């Protein structure tokens, strides 16, 4: 980096230095990239081996024989069909719920005037600071009182509300020009119709960001489901993947575990590739604003 502008008296011109630096950067980026991608590559490679291939030394990267049946075996052994359904229900419910509650409250905070509004907003922001670990025990006790242990409600209902999402919605909606809304109001739209017909369509980028964030977080969520979902038939995918590893006998069936891991990872990878733009924007805007 240091030599990039020292052109005079140097052996190379500025252009050559730039090309050399680019080349160097590519090499470094590629090496780091390989380190980042290798664990995934091994996961997929191992998921096609048999147990002999797993314990072979030195190991092969490419399996000698491709055992596609590992996937069906892992799928039935772990009751993944139920797990997929549970995870999908939970993720869909939490995403839709958060979009609804956060955008409504965001609109209320951003646009409507009523006494106490700013104080409630301040309370929301301070709640964002409370670590979830503090909530684990009281919330668990509460779930017992509600008789929600080992039901999907326990992982859905408490998460339909998001201080972070509400904050993001409010920040986004404040930037929407007021004139659009006033026009609708003059035309006789009520507040709900204004929110539904004017504000929501304009908030699409922020809604997309919140949706993909919430989907990834909910799909990956582990600690809370581990505590409240005891019965096998309500378990979500991360729980099944974790318990699958512990029930193994003498030789850990790594090929099946890796096949199971591949299943679980694929939906988030797809969600990320599809919504990468919104995901990255969410991190970047919340990051810079939150840190400012």
């Amino acid at each position, binding site marked *: 980096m240091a030599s990039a*502008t020292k052109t005079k008296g140097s052996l190379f011109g500025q252009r050559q230095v730039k090309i050399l630096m680019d080349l160097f950067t590519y090499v470094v980026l590629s090496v780091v990239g390989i380190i980042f991608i290798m664990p995934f590559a091994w996961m997929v490679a191992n998921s096609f081996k048999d147990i002999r291939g797993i314990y072979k*030394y030195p190991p092969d990267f490419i399996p000698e024989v491709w055992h596609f049946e590992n996937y069906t075996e892992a799928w039935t052994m772990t009751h993944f069909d139920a797990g997929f359904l549970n995870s999908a229900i939970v993720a869909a419910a939490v995403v839709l719920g958060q979009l609804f509650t956060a955008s409504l409250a965001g609109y209320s905070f951003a646009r409507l005037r009523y006494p106490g509004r700013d104080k409630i907003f301040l309370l929301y922001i301070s*709640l964002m600071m409370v670590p979830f670990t503090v909530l684990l025990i009281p919330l668990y006790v509460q779930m017992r009182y509600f008789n929600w242990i080992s039901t999907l409600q326990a992982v859905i209902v408490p998460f339909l509300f998001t201080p972070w999402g509400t904050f993001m919605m409010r920040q986004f909606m404040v930037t929407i020009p007021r004139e659009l809304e006033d026009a609708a109001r003059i035309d006789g739209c009520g507040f709900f119709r204004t929110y539904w017909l004017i504000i929501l369509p304009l908030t699409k980028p922020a809604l997309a960001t919140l949706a993909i964030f919430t989907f990834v977080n909910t799909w990956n969520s582990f600690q809370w489901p581990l505590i409240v979902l005891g019965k096998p038939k309500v378990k979500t995918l991360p729980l099944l993947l974790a318990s699958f590893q512990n029930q193994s006998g003498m030789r850990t069936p790594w090929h099946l575990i890796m096949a199971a891991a591949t299943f679980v990872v694929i939906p988030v990878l797809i969600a990320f590739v599809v919504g990468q733009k919104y995901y990255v924007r969410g991190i970047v805007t919340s990051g810079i604003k939150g840190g400012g």
Partner: protein
Amino acid sequence: MAAAIKARRDGGSLWATKLREFRRAFMGLRREESIAGYMFLLPNLVGFIVFMLFPIMFAFYIMLTDWSLAKPPEFIGLKNFDTMVNDRLFWKSLVNSFYYTFVAVPTGIFIAFWLALALNRKMRGIIFFRTVYFLPQITLTVAAATIWRWIYQPEIGMINHVLDWFGIDGPKWIHDTKWAMPSVIIMSNWQGIGFAMLILLAGLQGIPEEYYEAASIDGASGWQRMRYVTLPMLSPAIFFVVVTSLIGAFQAFDQFFVLTQGGPADATTPLTLYIFNNAFKFFKMGYGAALAAVLFVIILVITIIQWQLARRWVIGFDEDE
């Protein structure tokens, strides 16, 4: 707020003003808007009160009790905190939490910083690398820890096999008390670096090109431009990454639970796992809640210290409203 202060100065009662404000809000023109405002907030607010505010207050009570859930809670005052002082495992988990946090966060941010610098160069294919570095971040920690549990297997795992090429006899990683924590840290950084990298990259992209040009004209070397332009301009982004990473690291749980289960010999049991074991394995709700309170205070104190220190090194920190 200003109205309230004015009312007090004028000798009027604060509550009378509040009441007037309320009455005005619900009569006449603004009535409809006030009602709509509360109605829109309602679903969210009810959720918060029931699932956040109430549990937080409930936690204050639970930590003062001895409660196994089988019997009604027994109020014991501060005895849980008294127990903690002589609890060897509590101190061990505390040390582990600090070890993990204060090694994983600085090394992670250091690497993320250099990656962000490399990605900030104007070259083709940068988006591709950015995506690759970010993939572990969105992978669920359970799956990532699963993969790494295999990587760390002493006999069949990838890492010792690779070390073997260079003639190095690798350690037993997650099965060795000395190496277990570094193993978790390496895995966590592999997974978490994408977040810090992305924020630092956005910070770098926000630095105006002219600053560098001006510095070059003044004869600043590459190192000097880094020291006097890049680092100060990036300080708000670095600050944000440091604060959120520290908070996150103290709450890390999944990787410990899957990768090492806290072992061997509690070498990788952080406070979060110790809270989990007490509450949901031994059903000591009171003691668990007391431990969680300690974790909360630690996070709070460290965050406050960060904000205090920020005045000295973060550009434009005091200008914030």
